[in-house]
């Protein structure tokens, strides 16, 4: 549904994105993740036909964003960063304007506007001037205008910014409910948001894509082994040695003792869940199990590694070609 090939955008001498390629299949929700200034907004502006790329191509809903821009624009809903709106218009009259400009017929307009206001929880403010609304409401009015006209593809630049926790939850539920009928690409720098809302993740850093795939794929690639932190009390003998003897365990490191308990960090092959064996060992030795949990497998760590460049990019990214 969205197909991006070798997209490059230069602002004068500065390269905002370099050789970006990805695809988003129909009905999927993909999170575009990256630190500020990584090139998320630039990519989205190109996809929304607001500005042309310097190189490469992008197709949305089967049409080229540059040469068939009008066809693309008929099929997208776009929420730019910071949701720019007209402060002097009321919510209802603004949405009516958007519905009309998107070609919703006069007869259907009222109903459609009421519908998106309901879905985005702005109905109670419909006669208020947009300039008088709080940031959270403005953001949701911005989302409402993107949804108008029932576009196939939604391009949402930081849709939950400025919302309070309850509103964030509501909007995430709303976006989640779009899966299947709509293809959504949303940018964010809130990592849990991606886990909750998205089917896939694209991580971009300094204008280059450093990782893409589903969350579990990325976690598996980044961490071939699982790590379990185990903490027991009442152990008089060698905990680390006993744990290391369990089949499947690939490494054991002691961690700081606390209140007479002994802690170890257990590394094991991902395919093999060693936790039942650990529990049996603890029980058999007569130790007291205080704590056992998996560590360091979140998307957050994948992200931090990808962005900090501590390791090689998770997916083979072609070696940077220098400026042509």
């Amino acid at each position, binding site marked *: 549904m969205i197909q991006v090939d070798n997209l490059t955008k230069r*602002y004068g001498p500065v390269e905002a994105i370099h050789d970006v390629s990805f695809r988003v299949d129909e009905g999927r929700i993909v999170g575009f993740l990256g630190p500020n200034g990584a090139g998320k907004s630039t990519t989205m502006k190109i996809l929304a036909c607001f500005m*042309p790329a310097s190189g490469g191509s992008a197709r949305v809903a089967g049409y080229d964003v540059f040469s068939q821009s*009008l066809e693309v*624009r008929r099929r997208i809903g776009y929420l730019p960063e910071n949701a*720019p709106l007209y402060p002097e218009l009321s919510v209802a009259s603004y949405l009516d304007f*958007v519905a009309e*400009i998107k070609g919703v017929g006069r007869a259907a307009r009222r109903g459609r506007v009421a519908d998106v206001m309901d879905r985005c929880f702005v109905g109670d403010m419909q006669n208020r001037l947009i300039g008088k609304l709080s940031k959270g409401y403005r953001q949701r009015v911005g989302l409402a205008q993107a949804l108008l006209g029932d576009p196939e593809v939604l391009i949402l630049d930081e849709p939950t910014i400025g919302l309070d926790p309850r509103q964030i939850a509501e909007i995430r539920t709303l976006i989640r409910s779009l899966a299947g009928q709509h293809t959504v690409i949303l940018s964010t720098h809130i990592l849990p948001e991606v886990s909750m809302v998205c089917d896939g993740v694209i991580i971009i850093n300094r204008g280059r894509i450093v990782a893409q795939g589903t969350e579990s794929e990325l976690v598996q690639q980044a961490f071939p082994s699982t790590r379990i932190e185990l903490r027991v009390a009442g152990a008089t003998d060698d905990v680390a040695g006993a744990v290391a003897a369990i089949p499947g365990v690939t490494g054991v490191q002691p961690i700081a003792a606390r209140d007479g308990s002994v802690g170890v960090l257990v590394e094991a092959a991902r395919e093999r869940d060693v936790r039942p064996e650990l529990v049996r060992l603890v029980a058999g030795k007569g130790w007291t199990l205080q704590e056992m949990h998996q560590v360091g497998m979140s998307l957050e760590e994948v992200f931090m590694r990808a962005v900090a460049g501590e390791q090689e990019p998770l997916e083979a990214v072609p070696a940077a070609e220098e400026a042509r």
Partner: protein
Amino acid sequence: MRWRPVFKKEMRLYFGSPVAYVVFTFFLLISGWFFSQIFLFYSDASMRSFMQPQMGQNLNVVDNVMRPLFTNMSVVLLFFIPMLTMRLFAEEKKAGTMELLLTYPIRDGEVLAGKYLAALALYLILLALTLLYPGLVAYFTRVEWGPILTGYLGLVLTGAVFLAVGVLISSLTENQIVAGFGTFGVLIGFWVIGWGAEFAGGNLRGVLQYLSIGDHLDGFTRGLIDTKDLVYYVTGVALALFLTLRSLDSKRWKG
């Protein structure tokens, strides 16, 4: 052409903010003041013509009241029209709403048409309000409507050029004050360029005179519709709007 959504939105913005009301109020105050002064002067002259009948030969009410009023109004418009047009594109660019507008399924030409026609509509309403003055004249005396109507046609065309120049300049900047002053400067420039004709010789003289905006209004206020003037106004509007389209298009290229 799907210009109506943008047209309606612009009208809502004009009337939803104080812009339309402030412009209407002050334009009517100023032009009303002109009208009353000219009219008082005219009635004074009419009185005196009783004593000296030979003075009364040229006391046509249209020539003596409406013509100076039209000229005065066109000068006031030089100041007022930039304020109607300066926000049209500059404000959208500054606020970022341009980004949304240009990603809706609507052509640049349709956006431009909506905005230009909205400004033109506001201007026509403004002119319609000034029909009060010839109405008052007609109440007191018999008038020839022909030259008054052509005079209004001349004002409509002059305003149409002013507005097109204003829209063009607003599309070039994101700063409303720059757009306003830029428009004002260009319009004044085209107004006074004709003064240079006096000292210019040969072909230049004709060119300068033809470029001067004010000179083209003169014929209309005398009841004369000259093709030369019509061509001037129509090409002025077309050129300015065409350049605006190019300017909007360049946004897509430059990003």
